[in-house]
Structures are given as structure tokens and as C-alpha cells.
């Protein structure tokens, strides 16, 4: 499938924890609460499963934004996973910012299984930000993007 890339169509990777945020996304779906199709969800057991390497990988492969969604602090299915994720991602985001990568390209939000509305709002809001920022030129690996496209 070839897509004419005239207008900016961002690519956003969302890591969602299985217990809260993935279910929150399901609820957004059952409630027919729209958010842009450019957001693609990867299911992980817990936000603490998200290795900062995955975030970097996504950027390297051309993602324009990466968002990690997990259970609210205190509600982690595994009791402490999101607390670790919170520290790791804070550090990662700060480091990306230090390297001059636009800090709005990364985000962590806590979305419970009951917050379909919040899921959709957060995703819409994040996508809007990425649209404003435009393509992620600073960290994308151009080579990978061109050769694998088919």
C-alpha cells in the first residue's frame, strides 16, 4: 500500500498496560469515543514492562510521538509497576529533552479501565500536540524509514 505523504500524517505509538489502559481503550471503543487512527496501541502487561529502549526504537523507526499509559499510581495490578515506570519515563523524557528532542513528543498518562472518556481525550490531545510539532526529524532514522517502506 502506498500512501502519498503530502500532508503530515503522524505516527504515534501507544504502550498500554493490559489491566487498566488497554481496557480503558476498549471502553473508549465500546463507547464509540473517537481518537485519531494514527495512534496504534501495543499491549504490554504493565507500564513497567516498557523498556525505554522501546520508546527510542519507535522514534528511531519514525514514530512522531510515543505515549505510555498505565494504571493510576496506587492501582497497579502488580502493585508497584507503574511507580517504577514513572521514574524510568521521567528520566527518559528528561534525557530526550536534554538532547533537544521536543519534550511534547513523549507522554505518560494514567488511565483506568473505567476511563474510556479520559483515554479518548488524552489520545486526542496528544495527537493534537504531535500535529503541531510536525514530523520528528530530530531523532528519526531516515534510512530505516525509507528502505523498509513498501
Amino acid at each position: 500500500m502506498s500512501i502519498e505523504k503530502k500532508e503530515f500524517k503522524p505516527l504515534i505509538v501507544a504502550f498500554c498496560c493490559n489491566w487498566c489502559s488497554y481496557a480503558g481503550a476498549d471502553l473508549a471503543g465500546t463507547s464509540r469515543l473517537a481518537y485519531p487512527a494514527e495512534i496504534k496501541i501495543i499491549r504490554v502487561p504493565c507500564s513497567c514492562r516498557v523498556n525505554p529502549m522501546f520508546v527510542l526504537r519507535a522514534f528511531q523507526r519514525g514514530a512522531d510521538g510515543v505515549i505510555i499509559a498505565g494504571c493510576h499510581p496506587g492501582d497497579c495490578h502488580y502493585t508497584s509497576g507503574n511507580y517504577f515506570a514513572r521514574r524510568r519515563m521521567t528520566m527518559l523524557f528528561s534525557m530526550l529533552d536534554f538532547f533537544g528532542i521536543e519534550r511534547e513528543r513523549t507522554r505518560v498518562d494514567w488511565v483506568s479501565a473505567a476511563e474510556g472518556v479520559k483515554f479518548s481525550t488524552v489520545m486526542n490531545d496528544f495527537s493534537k500536540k504531535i500535529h503541531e510539532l510536525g514530523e520528528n526529524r530530530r531523532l528519526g532514522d531516515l534510512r530505516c524509514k525509507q528502505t523498509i517502506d513498501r
Partner: protein
Amino acid sequence: MQTNNRPVKEIAQEIFAENQAERILGWKRGEFFYDNSPAVFSAADELQEFVYDAFCGSNLSKFLVKEAAKEGRIAVLLKPCDRYSFNQLVKEHRIDKENVLPIEIDCDGMVDIDKVRALGIKGIKSISADGDQLTIETVYGQKNCSKEDVLLLKCQTCKDRTGGDRFALVREIEEMSSVERYEFWRSELSKCIRCNACRNVCPACTCEKCVFDNDKSGIANKANSDSFEESLYHMIRAFHVAGRCTDCGECSRVCPQGIPLHLINRKVIKDLNEFYGEYQAGADDSSVGPLTSYELDDVEPDIVMNRGGGR
């Protein structure tokens, strides 16, 4: 240089004389007077080559991962900054503490030969330190300079010696605009030749198999076109050692391209201190690091968004 008013070499000799250890990990003179390198001495007569002067910047701790696993107790000479690395490695069970005799030695700063040369001093034959002054013997006669001006980058803001603000440069970069920061690192990191020297010297990088050498890790592939892609290597490295980096500064010291790599680690340390409280990796050999612990009321990641600093 001396420790407790005794030349360090004497201390080394005493170790053999009193049978305190079977081997000593120290420094020996290299091809030139300024390229002293780590060495293991196994007998008193080998100590002829032993040296401890202003060119012993290298951190010996990492060598213990291999050396301490060998037969026979080994003594190691630890400058104050190396002690942190030693503790951190003991904490991570990388060094068999029982087989090591750690000897703490004093240090009043190590000299960067390139900085001496940069002063326009040529034909250097030898350098000796006399307090704050360096006496430089050259083929053109004796020269002098202030030691402070030619210290290794890591020694300039040594936390044990001067107490200078080691985060000053980090702060400068933080205050740049986002684009300026990007350009700064782009220009610095584009110099990277991916020689892996920073990783190889790093006392926090002692993995059985480094992820960058492991095809299965998914991050082993070397950069290909855009040189800034190298930054991922340095980002990943900084993240791997986050909370474990003792700020020994070896990465910058060995970088053949002169990239100030330690600034990345210092940025991490500065953030960890600000977000989760002061923490010095290797201050002890048992505490749990900031990225393997948490508090219920930790800052949210959007602090990065809401904090000051250039946009």
C-alpha cells in the same frame, strides 16, 4: 604522590613485604611518561615499574571484575573517585569483595597532557608536580604552569577535592533552547566514531555480554547513515548506567574525539538528585539505587514538560 605522608609506592612494597596480598592492581609507566596504564604486579621486584603520579587517571575498579575472580588475594589502589566505582561493583556482586584488599590513596588531581600542550608548551620531556604548580622539563628548557589549568575535565569539578559545581555545564546546556541543545549534541555526537572506548572503560559497563554486542538485543546494529543516530547509542548507554554511574568521568577522559560524554551522565545524576533526593552511586555497597526503588509521591513525568529550561 603520597598518602599519609608516605609515597604510594612504599605502601605497595609493604603489601608484598607483609604478605597482605598476592597481587597488586596499580599503574605502571607506559611508553611515554604521560600514558601510565593499569597493571597487575605479582612480586616485589615487579614494582620497579610501579608509578603513581599526576597521570594515573584511569579507574582501576573495573579490572577487578576479572582480576578478583582469579586465584589469590589482590590489593587495589583506589583514588577517592575510584572508591565509588569499587563499592558500586561490590554492590552489584561483580567483585568478590573477600578476595580484595582495597587501599585508599590520596589524589590531588590528574593532569591532561593535551591541555599542557594546548598552552603552547612543546617538546615535553617530563612533568613533575609541586603543590599547585607544575614543573615541565622540555627540550627547550624548564617551563611552569598552574596545575589547576591543566587538570583532567573530571578532576576540575572533583567532588572530593574542590567541591566545584559539577553541574554547571549541565545547567548551561539546560538553559539553551531546545534547538540549540539539539544542535549542540548533534555537533558533539556527530564526532563519535563508535570506537566503544567509553563503554569499554566504564566501570558500570561490566555486563557478561553487552547489549550492543548482542545480536538478539535488537539494539546491536551499528548506526548507518545519519550520524546523529549515534546519539541513540549514547542515550541507551546513559540509561543503562543511570542510577549506577558514579560520575568517575572515565568516558570523557578516554574519548578520542573529546566528546563531553560525562555531561550526559551528570544530567542523569542531576535529575535523580532533584527528583528523588541526593544519591551518590557507590557511596556504600548495599543501598538500593533510585531506579530500582520508588516513593508513592514521586514526581509525575510531566515535570519535564512543566519545568523551566529552554524550549
